[in-house]
C-alpha cells in the first residue's frame, strides 16, 4: 500500500517497503538528493529533515512513520535559499566540503524555532548530533548566533 505524506508542500504517494528509511525514500524514490547519508544509525545528523517541524534523523526513521505528516528537506526550507540560517551560513562561509551542511542547517533551523536566542551551551547541546568531519563547528556556532540576531 502506498505511503502518503507531504514533501516540501507537495503530496507524495510512494509504493515502497514501509520499513525503508525516510532518507532513501526521499533520495532514491522522490529524487531529492540534498539530504545526505552519513552513517545509517542516527549517529551523524547528515540526513536531518523536519517531520511536522521536528528535526528527525531520516536514516533511522521508517518512511511509514511519516505517513500523513509534513516533511521538509533542505530543498524546501525556503523558496529562494534565503532563510536567515542559510544566509548566515553563506555570510560566514561556513561550508568546507559542504556535505554535512544540509543536516547542520536543518538542525540549526529547528533549534532557532524552539529557542530564538540560544546560548553557546544550548547550541552545543542541539548541534552535537551533527558531525562535521571538516571541522566547521566554530563557524556553525557563529552562524547560528548571527541568524539569531546576535553579533557574530
Amino acid at each position, binding site marked *: 500500500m502506498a505511503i502518503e505524506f507531504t514533501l516540501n508542500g507537495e503530496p507524495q504517494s510512494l509504493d515502497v517497503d514501509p520499513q525503508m528509511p525516510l532518507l*532513501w525514500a526521499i533520495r*532514491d524514490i522522490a529524487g531529492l538528493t540534498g539530504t545526505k547519508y552519513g552513517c545509517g544509525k542516527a549517529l551523524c545528523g547528515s540526513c536531518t529533515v523536519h517531520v511536522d517541524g521536528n528535526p528527525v534523523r531520516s536514516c533511522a526513521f521508517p518512511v511509514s512513520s511519516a505517513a500523513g505528516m509534513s516533511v521538509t528537506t*533542505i530543498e524546501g526550507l525556503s523558496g529562494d535559499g534565503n532563510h536567515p540560517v542559510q544566509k548566515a551560513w553563506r555570510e560566514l562561509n561556513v*561550508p568546507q566540503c559542504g556535505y554535512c551542511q544540509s543536516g547542520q542547517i536543518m538542525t540549526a533551523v529547528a533549534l532557532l524555532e524552539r529557542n530564538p536566542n540560544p546560548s553557546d551551551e544550548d547550541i552545543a547541546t542541539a548541534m552535537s548530533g551533527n558531525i562535521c*568531519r571538516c*571541522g566547521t563547528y566554530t563557524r556553525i556556532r557563529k552562524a547560528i548566533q548571527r541568524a539569531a540576531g546576535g553579533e557574530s
Partner: protein
Amino acid sequence: MSGLEKLSRREFLQKTGVASGGLVFAMTLGIPRGADGADAGSVSPNVYVNIRDDDVVEIYCHRSEMGQGIRTSLPQVIADELEADWDRIELLQALGDPKYGDQNTDGSTSIRKHFDVLRTAGASAREMLIAAAALEWGVPAAELVARDHAVHHEASGRSAAYGDLVAAAAELEVPEDVTFKDPADYRYIGKSMDLIDGAAMTTGTAMYGTDTVMSGMLYASIERCPVFGGTAKSIDEAAALKVKGVEKVIRMPEPTSPPAYNPIGGVAVLASNTWSAEQGRKALAVEWDTGLNAEYDSESYRQQLVDTSHKDGKTALNRGDVNAAFENSTRVIEADYYAPHLSHAPMEPPAATARMHEDGSVEIWAATQDPQSVQGTVAALLEIDKAQVKVNVTLLGGAFGRKSKADFSAEAAWLAKKTGKPVKVSWSREDDIRHGYYHSVSAQYLKGALDDEGNATAWLHRSVFPSIGSTFSAEAAGPGNFELSLGMLDNPYAIPNMRLESGDAKAHVRIGWLRSVCNIYHAFAICGFADEMAHEAGADPRDYLLRLAGQSRKVNPADHGAEYSNYGQSLDAHPIDTARYKAVVEKVSAMAGWGRDMADGHGLGIAVHRSFLSTVGTVAEVRVDAKGKLHVEELWLVIDAGLVVNPDRVVAQMEGAGIFGMSLALHGEITAKDGVIEQGNYDTYPVIRMSEAPKAINVHIMDVDAPPGGVGEPGVPPVAPAIVNAYFAATGKRVRELPLKKAGVV
C-alpha cells in the same frame, strides 16, 4: 609484469615524488576556434581558459574540491592574471585528462605546485586579448592595458570588452613567454573571496559522488571479505534475489596482490534503490576464505613494532656520533611513542556511478581526488584504452586522502560492464571504516642526551611502520624515504649529534595517505619528546624550542646523508628555514599569552612542525576536571605558508585541522582482531563533535614574502602533541600514546 602493475608502479612513483622534478607545465598552445569541443564563438588560449564572445570567461578547475576551497582559490589566480571580472567568470569542473597535467588532489599541492601554471594560464590569455586589440586598432600592444574584463587604449580612449576580441584573438598564436602582474596589483590573489559553491552547499543543490542519478540506474551494495585479501568460497544468493527491488547478484573480481587501487573482491547486490540493495546484501550467505591476514592482531603487532624500534635500524640521516654522546652524558632520556591506524571517515563514504557507452567506452561520475588514476585503473580492469574512460569529477563530501584511490570507481565500472546498465556504488559507513586504506600504525623510539646546561647534545629517533609502498608492491618491507621525508628527515633542531633510523614492518591491511600522512606520528613523537627534553632541562618548553632551533639557518638534510624529497619542490624556493620556524614559535606563543597564570587544572602546550612546505605552530589550552577528564578549551594556530591566495580559506583549513587533529588525538583508533577491523561507525570510531570543540580556534597567517606552501594538511600534525604537552603542563603526567582515550583521560 602486466599493464596494471606497470600503471600502479608509475602512479606510485608520481605520488611519492620519486619521479617528479619541479613544475609540471601542462599548457597546450593554440587551440583553434571550434576545435577540441570549444564553441565557435570562443577562444581557448590554454586548457584552463575559454573566452566566449558573450563576454563570459570559462575557467576549468582541474583539481578536486573536497573542502579546501580550491574551486574558489583556483579561479582567483587565473582571473587575477587575466584581469577578468569575478562576476563574469563561469567555473567548470574539468574532466580527467592528462592535458591538464597533474590532477591528483593530494599532498596539499593545488596552489603550491600549480600557482605558476595558473598564473600563466591567465596571463597568456590576457596577452592574447591585448595582441588582438593591438591588431584591430593598429597600435602597439605596449600602449594597451587589460583591466576590468576589457582592453583599453588610454591614448585614444578606446576600449573593447573581452567578448568582442574573441574573433580576432582566435587568429593569433598563443604567446609563449608571458609577464606576470606585479603582486602589488593583485585584485583577487590574497583576498578572501566568498565560496563559489556557497549557495549550492546551503540549498541542497551541490552534487556529490553519491548524488548521481540516471534513468535505469542500479544501486549496488557490496559485501566484502571481513579480512583484507580474503576471497569468497561459496555464495548463496537465493534469499537475496527474493528481496523486493533486488535485480542481480554479481561476484566481484578477486583482490590482487599488491592491492593497488583494484577492487577487493566480494559480492555485489544490485537493486532499484539503495535500501533494497542493502536488504538483499543482508540476505546473502557467503562463506569466506579469510586468507593470509586472518591472524592480524593489533595488540601483538604493536609489540612487534615496539621491539623493532628498540633495535638498530636503517640509518637515514647521521650527524656526529650519538652513541659516543650518550656514553659521555650523565643525562639521557628515552621514550616510546605509539600511534594507531586511522580511518579517513569522510562524511560522504566512497561513491561512484558508471555507465557503458555503445562504443565500448565507459563514463564515470565519481567523488575522486584523482580522475586520471581512475582512468588508468578502470582501463586496466576493463581492458580498454585510458582514453575510453571518461571521468566526471563531482564534489567530494570530504576525502582526506581516501578518495585518491580509484577502487570504488573501478567497482562501479566493473558492474556497469557486467550489467550493461548504469550502476551507482555507494559504500556504507561500515564499509568505509572496515575496508579502508588506513593511515599507518607506528612505533617511534626516541633517545636524547643533555649537557649540564640542559642543552641537547644527542638525538636518536627510530620510526617503525608498515609502508604505503605495500599497497603498490608486495615486496615493500618498511618505511620508504618518501615517508621518512614526511616530518622526520627535515628535523630542524640544532643538535650536534643526531641519527634518524627506520625499522621494517609488514602490512596486513591496505595502507594509504591520510591528511598529513606520516607527519602525524612523526610530529607527535618529535614535538612530544622536545617537550620532555625541555622539562628534563628545567626549561620553559616554548623557550626550549627556540634553543633547539638554534642559529637562524637553512637546514639541508642531504648534508648528513639523507635522501630528502622536500615534497617534490626545491630547497632553494622552499627552505627548511629555522628563522621562519622561530618566528612561528614566537607568534603563536604570544597570541596564546604563553607564561600567563593558569587556573588550577589548566595547562598550555606548544608544538611546531613543518610539513608540505609550510610551518604551523599550535598552542593548546586544556582543562582537566575533577574526574581527571581532559577538555580542550582553546587552540591557537599560526601558519607560515608563504603567499596565500584566499586567507579566509587558509583560516578555515586551520580551524578544520584543529578539529581533525583533536579527533585523532582524543579518539581515533582502528584496530584489528583475527584480521577483522573492530570499528564500524561513528559510535566505535568517534570523531570530535561540537560538544567537545574548543570555544575558539584562533588563527594567524604569517606575512612572509615567499612562494606558496601547502595549506590543507600542515595544520594537523602539531595539534596532538600540543594537547599532550598541555596535558603534561596541567597534570605532570606524560602521555606517549594516541589516542588519549586509551589513557582514560577522555
